């Protein structure tokens, strides 16, 4: 199997430099998953309270009546809550799945309560359920599958007011993730001219594509300052390398911690221009923290093979930077997905994408979006709205059971990683998360009958929005003014 570095270098050489690089050995993209249980227990979903007097009375009554210990001992829980050494006298809520059979049968002395500690998980954006889901995904690397239908609110703001489409009959793919056909989640980062031109001899004469692929449309973003440790950066770098994606790291810690590799994207501010020369390799991508023509020139001069991305807030006009030669943009909202003008990224992404389409340059540029991605379903939704890939932030921390001190909104937010964090475990957790989210992306793509995630970008026709659907369905109904 090719390593990411090898594959990327080959592809980069092939795409950027020569057109005739070695074809490489085909391998089917796969993220290796392995069980990586939580380091410490997460608060149980439920608390189980058993009245000891009531239970004792029940046992005595049943003993007298049945005179058979096996019958008396039979308790309603299938999951082991009452299977400890003293049974119901010391229930084990960590096993409770909330089926409520025990309290249904014995309402007088068994109560099942929602655990208030669990309600503290996450923050005002990432819900306790989303935290639970991420912990499951990172522990197992699998897609959460459960019985019964949807249990939540009908719709809502942001991503909750958006549904993805599916194809009923006419479709190019079969079977989704369980099928035989390969659905690609690879996206290209880089400069992609709209067309090629050739001279009289048939040789390319104009601008050539300069792009390289990443295995999933997800990269890892700069973490909050409070966790910018050598170990955490190394974990991200290792996971990114395995997943064949990228991690954005400020250039100073990148150099200090000796992290350079193709999977690491140095984030460079105009004042850090001199650091570029200290990089031992030319990164696949270098990210400018803000626009600066001299910095751009310096990157081109020192690392001519590296591609350049500009990190910027949503809301700025991209066209002027495109005219200046920038073809890769990392658009940033806060971790809760709010842009500086108070909009959610869903709308901001759509605006950027639409403006580039109208200007006729959308195919030439790569958009990476940061902020507001807290669950697997947010990835395809963001891509449908118009980004090529998303950058993950807080979910990676939750994957490692980091403790959020208050709202985790931006790089200044206080976050605490577990003490004695095992690097191998942490790397595996992030790999598991990436694999689970990728598989869920495949479910979405499979349902639509799409064979590659590139095709999903900006496909608003593959989405349905609550406001629009509600208007179509309820217009004319008294009281509806949409």
């Amino acid at each position, binding site marked *: 199997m090719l390593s990411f570095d090898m594959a990327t270098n080959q592809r980069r050489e092939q795409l950027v430099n020569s057109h005739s690089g070695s074809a490489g050995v085909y391998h089917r993209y796969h993220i290796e998953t392995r069980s990586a249980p939580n380091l410490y227990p997460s608060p149980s979903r439920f608390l189980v309270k058993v009245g000891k007097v009531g239970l004792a009375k029940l046992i005595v009554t049943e003993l007298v009546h049945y005179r058979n210990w096996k019958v008396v001992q039979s308790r309603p829980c299938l999951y082991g809550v009452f299977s400890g050494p003293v049974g119901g006298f010391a229930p084990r809520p960590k096993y409770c799945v909330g089926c409520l059979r025990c309290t249904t049968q014995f309402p007088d002395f068994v109560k099942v309560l929602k655990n208030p500690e669990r309600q503290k998980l996450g923050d005002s954006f990432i819900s306790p359920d989303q935290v639970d889901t991420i912990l499951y995904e990172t522990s197992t690397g699998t897609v959460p599958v459960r019985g*019964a239908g949807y249990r939540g609110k009908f719709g809502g703001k942001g991503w909750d007011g958006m549904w993805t489409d599916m194809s009923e009959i006419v479709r190019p793919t079969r079977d989704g993730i369980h099928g035989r056909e390969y659905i690609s989640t690879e996206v290209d980062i880089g400069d992609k001219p709209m067309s090629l031109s050739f001279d009289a001899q048939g040789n390319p004469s104009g601008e050539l594509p300069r792009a390289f692929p990443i295995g999933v449309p997800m990269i890892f973003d700069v973490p909050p300052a409070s966790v910018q440790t050598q170990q955490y950066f190394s974990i991200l770098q290792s996971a990114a390398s395995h997943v064949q994606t990228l991690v954005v790291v400020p250039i100073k810690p990148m150099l200090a911690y000796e992290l350079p590799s193709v999977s690491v994207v140095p984030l460079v501010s105009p004042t850090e221009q001199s650091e570029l020369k200290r990089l031992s390799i030319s990164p696949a991508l270098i990210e400018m923290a803000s626009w600066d023509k001299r910095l751009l020139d310096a990157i081109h001069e020192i690392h001519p093979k590296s591609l350049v991305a500009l990190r910027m807030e949503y809301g700025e006009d991209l066209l002027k930077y495109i005219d200046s030669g920038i073809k890769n943009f990392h658009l940033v909202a806060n971790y809760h997905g709010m842009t500086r003008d108070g909009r959610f990224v869903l709308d901001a992404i759509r605006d950027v994408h639409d403006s580039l389409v109208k200007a006729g340059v959308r195919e030439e540029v790569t958009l990476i979006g940061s902020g507001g991605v807290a669950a697997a379903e947010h990835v395809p939704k963001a891509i449908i709205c118009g980004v090529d890939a998303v950058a993950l932030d807080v979910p990676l921390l939750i994957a490692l059971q980091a403790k959020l001190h208050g709202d985790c909104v931006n790089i200044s937010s206080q976050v605490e990683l577990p003490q004695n964090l095992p690097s191998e475990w942490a790397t595996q957790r992030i790999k598991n998360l990436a694999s689970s989210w990728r598989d869920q992306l495949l479910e979405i793509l499979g349902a639509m009958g799409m064979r590659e995630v590139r095709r999903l970008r900006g496909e608003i026709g593959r989405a349905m929005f609550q406001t629009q659907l509600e208007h179509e369905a309820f217009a004319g109904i008294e009281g509806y003014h949409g």
Partner: protein
Amino acid sequence: MVKLNSKSPEQMITEKHVLALREGFHRWASLELGKMPALGDARWTADLIYANWVQAETGRPPSNGLNFQTGNSEGGFDLLDFKFLPESKWLPASQEPDTSIPLNKRAYDKKIQIPIPFYGGGMSYGSISEQIMLSRARAAKKWGTFTSTGEGGYPDSLVQYKDNVITQIATGLFGVREETIQNAPIVEFKYAQGAKPGLGGHLLGDKTTMAVAKIRESVPWVSLFSPFPFHSVYCVEDHRKHIDWVKATNPEALVSVKVSTPTDVDMVAVGSYYAGAHIIHIDGSYGGTGAAPEIAKKNIAMPIEFAIPRVHEHLVKEGIRDEVVLMSSGGIRTAYDIAKAIALGADGCVIGTAELVALGCTRCSNCERGRGCPFGLTTTDPELSQLVDPDWGAERISNLYKSLQFQLRDILRKLGLKSVKELRGRKDLLIYRGNHV
């Protein structure tokens, strides 16, 4: 307490739990114990679950203050209400509005009418126990309506109820045999399911017991993932081939086409009509399932409240609305949901979860794991499935149906309508109670 006599310990255990459960359903629903703190969710609130239990026990809606009409989802049916007439204009209490609907509006083929505008949706053997299948079938027979096999085969015990059982053919073709098609007055093609549109069925290995594997002609304890979509269908024209195949096997059968709700669900419905379907069954994204990826439940395809008017109005525009029956499902919980769905344009509804709640489901979402449902519903575990006796189950479902019909008649009476058929597509009788997004 169980009378001991000469019962085995296993029998005593079952009876002990059955008695305690039934008493629990009664006591909790009476509200004498308050409400379970952990029961319910936005769609199925504790009130709706308790109200269902009351109906399953008494055949009437509750009168103890439980909200038996809407959930707390803040959208869809939960924001719609009826514009009832002033009481002076209600139909007299002595007049019972007609709640029957036809299931074949074509000029040809067998005419089937059901006395209530709903029937039971597909639940496969494997996803639920044989006892639950029997409970549903007996209730369907009692009411002259239908239940569906789902994609899991046709247990022999169901054959005596065949006049009220829809045979489902889904993409895995599990359990589909010539005789099960010949048994069926209605054959249902399941193209997709609302809870997991575009993904095919899931039956996890723990629930694929020897008996389940045998009837599905598969391997025990191996997870079964139905393909998606039908490998024999690449276009709407191929869909016609499917219907011809069924008609060749059972010329008498009506054909239902079950689809989920993509953006082009209206076009799919028209295609299904021209392929020869008698019933178009649209299943919205908030429907039930025995197992589905969580990502699919919320995020793929539209809720049924939006799909019904889209399909209804498109069929009207095409001039074919009165030749095809439109059934809707995917989040139909109450009589009010049924009436609202019909007012939005459906002829009737297909219910599933509501029947399981009547049998004790608490919506805990653990149907797929291990031995399956701890209440003996979505399980094939030999011990757990004993928790529901088919006679008791049939009575509970039948009582629920009775209450649903009672409420539907009440709604129609207050709207001045003599038949549920008059309610179809009457959006003008609805009122929106929410602040739209």
